[in-house]
């Protein structure tokens, strides 16, 4: 899937770079970018919600596990935003822009799209950063699980903890950690659509 995604973005970039002046449909797409993105987002979030609602064991598992499960994702979110904010001192980007880039929590198909109308530059960095978050999570989950702790390893992937990175989490930790990963993925994932628009409204 990651390969398809990278290829799609690369193809889009090439179309945008070389097709705007020559190909009518590409010109139309670029001109109506905002509208096309909005409608795509509506469909995506509806289907994501549908999946969440259909998966009823997730909610009952989370209820059983109690409030402690829910505070770890909060630490992941605060840590992510704090880490990204610190970086703003190294680069010529505003503090809220860096935080918004980090606030994708690895959901690279949603976060950069939310930022597309704000700034193509920030959106491009956001895409790269969140693809990296998922890839780096694959590498670091076993290491953090071994040397730091099981629960800590679930915070690495952010929103990807509940899908693409779940397999590596189970292999590196224990069955009981799955609920931490799923709760973390769900909470950070849901908040992507809240935190990013909020951060760029400043």
């Amino acid at each position, binding site marked *: 899937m990651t390969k398809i*995604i990278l290829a*799609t*973005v690369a193809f*889009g*970039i090439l*179309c*945008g770079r*070389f097709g*705007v002046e020559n190909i009518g449909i590409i010109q139309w*797409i*670029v001109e109506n970018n905002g509208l096309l*993105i909005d409608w795509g987002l*509506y469909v*995506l*979030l*509806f*289907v994501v*919600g*549908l*999946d969440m*609602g*259909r998966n*009823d064991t997730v909610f009952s598992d989370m209820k059983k596990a109690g409030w*402690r499960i829910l505070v770890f994702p909060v630490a992941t979110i*605060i*840590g*992510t*935003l704090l*880490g*990204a904010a*610190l970086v703003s001192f190294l680069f010529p980007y505003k503090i809220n822009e860096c935080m918004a*880039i980090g606030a994708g929590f690895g959901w690279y*198909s949603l976060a950069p*799209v939310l930022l*597309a109308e704000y700034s*193509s530059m920030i959106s491009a*960095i*956001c*895409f*790269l*950063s*969140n693809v*990296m978050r998922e890839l*780096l999570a694959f590498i670091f989950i076993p290491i953090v699980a071994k040397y*730091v*702790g*099981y*629960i*800590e390893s*679930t*915070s*690495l992937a*952010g929103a990807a903890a509940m899908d693409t990175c779940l397999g590596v989490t189970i292999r590196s*930790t*224990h069955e*009981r950690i799955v609920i931490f990963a799923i709760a973390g993925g769900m909470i950070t994932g849901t908040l992507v*659509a*809240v935190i990013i628009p*909020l951060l760029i*409204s400043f």
Partner: protein
Amino acid sequence: MAYTAKLLSIMAVGIVVGILVNKNTKKTGNKFEWLTKTSGKIQTMVVIYLLFILGTRIGSDEQVFAELDRLWIVALVITMAAMAVGVLLVHLLRKALKFDKEGVKMDD
């Protein structure tokens, strides 16, 4: 704010429909099985559609295109810092809540 509310309410409608479909499937068998089967496919298609559009936006912005080879460094530093501070805070919280390294609650 209005945009966020719109996005979240669309997601909430999805969740409610998902819960209803789930209940209905249990009651009447697999009447809505097509929805289960296609939602993953729809998701993949929409993601590919969105990322293509995003690509055209990035590609048609000359400044971004010119700086693409530099932007990945910014992205890498932000990602590493975000993950590191995230792990650090979760670590402190785990200690404070008295879970052991393997995620088992320790008795006081």
